[in-house]
């Protein structure tokens, strides 16, 4: 074992949820409160770890300039020598940001699911297993484990939506799982092509990302006579791009998402929209771009066009929706278009903005689904014409909803504004001028459907039909919402807290894209 002595905090970040899930197995199903508390305890530990990690990163990263990786935290333990599989974890600014995002969202998610009565044990088990996968994806540097955790993050979603979901859940869950798995398989094909190519140069099989990058530097993926005259990178990159892009969700591979959002129970939607969807862009930034920078430089202009559809088309479809979860779902598609635009800009500013937006959007959308879930549990109705005037009966939720709307609309004070502006500037700087203009126009479209949603659900005359609604009254009930709003405000006022941490990763990626020939 190299690197951190003992068990690295990064390994703990994956072990803690794994152990939490394992522990849930042993709690009797009837003891729901034990399950809940055990889950909350586990996720609180992870939240603490993530905050510690963020603080460490803020302090250490300027010194870790050279490797862009936090020194002393990574560790590697070889597992299957012949195939080159090892337990390999490391964290750079991007990973830290994503781990922090996940821990924030799952913490709130556990709280929000407190009221689930039906098979609570199995629910929490699936939820925590899913999040184990997500944490794993964000800290691992081994492609085998990457794929493993990636699938681990998708499969429990099938159960979560299929058993505890609502509208059209069988169709939605089947579609979501098949779609994402197909994407993962396409990505796997790409990963394996890279794996075998690296073997040709290195002489041994390895899933270790750093070794694969070294192979890249040695010209393993270069075009040339050895490659049979074809540009290897240009052929392989789309497997990774569209495979991971399905979950991003890159237009037109997005259709699984809104339906999945709508059908899933609150905590699952929070994880799905908040975190799961970030796996795609993360994977593109973590694996696809560094391994195949020339391929990326070739294909990203295509992404620059496709993401326009995400932004505008996604927004327009949201305008036509009446179900609140669908509105938020298509809104997510639209916002993720900004992330993809930031990546496609190939500038440090744009990529930094994209990663920051992944964080900000994740928290914001988690808040959205938490709020919708809260009142949907009581009203059993989420369509705008049926709702209305709820701010009279549930003012706290109403206020939190307005905060969420403002964050989503890109109003300053919230993290989303800064990240979106960074993406827009990055896009312009990267030469994507028309795309930047469209991105700016996107904020007008966003305003339309968001204000309509707020107005339709919460404002207007008091509707006696909802007089029995109970607001989030106790501090415990209010905690998840307050927590998420506080995070959005904190990073909205002090964006530098996260931007400075992400910067080295963004700089490295931009440098790579600017000079794909050199490492």
């Amino acid at each position, binding site marked *: 074992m190299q690197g951190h002595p003992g068990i690295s905090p990064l390994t703990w970040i994956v072990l803690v949820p794994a152990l939490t899930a394992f522990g849930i197995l042993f709690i009797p199903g009837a003891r729901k409160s034990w399950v809940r508390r055990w889950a909350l305890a586990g996720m609180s530990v992870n939240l603490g770890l993530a905050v510690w990690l963020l603080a460490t990163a803020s302090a250490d990263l300027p010194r870790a300039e050279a490797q862009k990786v936090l020194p002393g935290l990574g560790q590697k333990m070889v597992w299957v020598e012949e195939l080159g599989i090892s337990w390999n974890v490391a964290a750079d600014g991007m990973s830290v940001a994503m781990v922090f995002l996940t821990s924030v969202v799952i913490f709130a998610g556990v709280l929000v699911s407190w009221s689930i009565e039906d098979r609570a044990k199995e629910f929490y088990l699936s939820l925590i297993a899913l999040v184990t996968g997500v944490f794993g994806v964000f800290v691992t540097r081994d492609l085998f484990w990457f794929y493993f955790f990636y699938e681990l993050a998708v499969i429990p979603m099938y159960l979560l939506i299929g058993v505890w979901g609502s509208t059209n859940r069988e169709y939605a869950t089947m579609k979501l799982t098949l779609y994402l798995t197909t994407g993962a398989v396409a990505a796997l094909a790409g990963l394996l092509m890279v794996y075998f190519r690296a073997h040709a140069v290195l002489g041994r099989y390895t899933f270790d990302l750093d070794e694969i990058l070294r192979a890249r530097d040695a010209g393993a993926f270069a075009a040339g006579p050895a490659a049979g005259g074809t540009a290897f990178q240009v052929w392989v990159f789309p497997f990774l791009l569209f495979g991971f892009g399905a979950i991003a969700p890159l237009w037109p591979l997005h259709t699984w998402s809104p339906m999945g959002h709508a059908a899933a129970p609150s905590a699952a939607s929070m994880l799905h929209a908040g975190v799961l969807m970030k796996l795609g862009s993360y994977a593109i930034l973590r694996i696809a771009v560094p391994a195949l920078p020339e391929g990326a430089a070739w294909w990203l202009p295509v992404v620059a066009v496709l993401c326009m559809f995400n932004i505008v088309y996604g927004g327009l479809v949201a305008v036509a929706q009446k179900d609140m979860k669908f509105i938020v779902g298509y809104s997510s598609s639209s916002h993720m278009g900004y992330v993809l635009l930031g990546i496609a800009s190939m500038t440090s500013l744009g990529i930094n903005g994209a990663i920051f937006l992944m964080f900000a959007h994740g928290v914001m959308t988690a808040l959205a689904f938490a709020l919708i879930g809260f009142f949907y549990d009581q009203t059993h109705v989420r369509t705008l014409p049926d709702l209305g005037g709820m701010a009279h009966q549930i003012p706290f939720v109403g206020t939190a909803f307005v905060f969420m709307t403002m964050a989503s609309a890109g*109003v*300053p004070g919230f993290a989303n504004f800064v990240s979106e502006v960074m993406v827009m500037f990055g896009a312009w700087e990267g030469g994507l001028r028309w795309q930047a203009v469209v991105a700016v126009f996107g904020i007008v479209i966003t305003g339309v459907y968001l204000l309509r949603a707020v107005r339709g659900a919460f404002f207007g005359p008091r509707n006696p039909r909802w007089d029995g609604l109970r607001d989030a009254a106790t501090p415990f009930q209010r905690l998840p919402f307050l927590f998420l709003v506080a995070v959005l405000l904190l990073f909205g006022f002090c964006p530098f807290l996260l931007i400075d941490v992400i910067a080295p990763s963004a700089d490295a990626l931009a440098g790579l894209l600017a000079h794909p020939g050199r490492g």
Partner: protein
Amino acid sequence: MSPDLAPLAWTTLFAPLAAAALAGLLLRRRRALAAGVSVLGMVVGLVCTLFLLWRSLTAKEGEPTGFEAHFTWVAAGSFEARFGVLVDRLSLLMALVVTGVGTPIFVYSIGYMHGDEGYGRYFACLSLFAFSMLGIVFSTNLLQTFVFWELVGLSSYLLIGFWFGRDSAVEAGKKAFMVNRVGDFGFLCGILLLYYAVSTLPGFRDMKIPDPASPGGLDVPNALDFGHLARFYRDPALLPLLGGGTAALAAVLLFCGAIGKSAQFPLHVWLPDAMEGPTPVSALMHAATMVAAGVYMTCRVFFLFEPFPGALQVVAWIGGITAFLAATIALVQTDIKKVLAYSTLSQLGYMVMAIGLAGATAGMFHLTTHAFFKALLFLGAGSVIHACRTQEITEMGGLRKPMPSTFWTWWIGTAALIAVPGTSGFFSKDEILAAAADPVHGSGPLLALGLVTAGLTAYYMMRCTALTFHGEHRGHGHPHESPAVMTLPLWFLAVPALFVGWLGFPLLFHGHPWFQAEFNVRGVEAQAGPHEFHLPLALLGTGFAAAGGVIGWLAFGTRRIDAAAWKERLLPLHTLLARKYFLDEFYLWLVRVVQQGVAEVSNFVEQNVLIRGVIDGLSALVKASGRSLRELQTGSIHTYVRFALAGTVVVLAWVLLASARGGP
């Protein structure tokens, strides 16, 4: 005047935010405390501003009259966005307007909003607005301005839709937010265009700019920063490096933000609807400050327009058209707040027109005087609404005796608005007309427009005043004067409404030593100087106003002219004006037909093509192939043997052929 005074500016900016947080989070139930904290926030700001202004005005020869303090907010790649306070006479003047008009309005609100459910929420939102507005005022760079621009829009949305139980209020809030967003779209595109056009020029990057934080050191040129941009634009060697077309376009796009925020044509439609909000909100935001933000911002970046007459023309004409158009609509309004709203639109048009005529000082002067007398008029309207429980002037009348404070302060405000000689409005409007009459930068048609509009202004104000205060009371109740907490602010505002103009009166002070809105951005010379006082022009302006006023009074005050008969005679014209030139209908069509149409088409594509067509089609394909392949499982031994035989033959053949080819 040195950066040591920066904490005063920071306090002015953040005190209202602290008040908003306190009022919103902790004090919602403790109403008096919420109100008190908010008023305190404003008073603190007012005191700090006055002190800073005094220091700036008494600065000795050679001493700087302003300073700047900032820190880095966002830094990624080569991009840096800063956050800071820019204190110079222009920003201090505007801050004075905000806090000087804001404080009495906050106090007035204590009385006006008494008993309302959302009392605490009201003060929290109002304080949030004050913070946002001061952020625009003290902004050091374009992005910071945009940040607070959006926040002001948010505050406006929250306050217009304050009584969210009322559909019309909610719709009005939405409309304000969306129309502003359209303007913001132009604004942000302008920032992007300008930033990258300038920052990619080597000439800009090589500029030597002293760092305000470390004396003697050099700052990194930042193409968002007002000071840096001004320095670049005023350098005759550097400016030509920037493409004229790009620069002019960027300026006009930035102005789009002002079109939205200051409700200029064609984005003016949100302002009259904004009257749905509580009257003190209308007074503070939609008369004195928020809508003035566009004017202020345009003055702040006046150097971006100066070299480009085309851009200036766009500004001037949009202002002039707005001024005239709005005044015509005000002629037929029956809701007292709507009259004042259209009047505000009209006066904002004057300010914008002035800037477009290179009379930035005149524009700021009018902004200042207008803030005071318009706020006064709105608060007076609030007092009247409170007493008569209606907003329709047709149901008012006879309020002179029962409401003396309101009556007299209303007349003071009206006099200023009509530009009665000697009032503040007289001097500021005269400056604007002088700018229009200027031989170099002026414009004959716009001067004519300005004069006619002055006449219309007098007409509609006389009409409104006569119907509201004079004659017999046409309502049902017994109106009485409002409490002191509401009338004292009225008198407080009446003083500057009368006398602020004298601070700018050229003959008396030889060119505004007190009120010299120096566009003095860190040492660069003021460009937009004041104009001389022109007696003939002043008389001409007064003449038009007098004419309009007399007609208005004759029609509605003394009933010598039969207004009803004239209305019949000019019914088509009257309808056109009453329906606001059908612009609202046009925008509604845009939303209902165009926006919804495009959305429905996209949705159709999504549901039918992508989902049903592609995805479900794929799954249907898989199902179908599964079904047909299932046919192979016939259960009959004969079929299986047949297949096995056929398979064996195929494999044998393939192997033989392959080895034949692989052979020598």
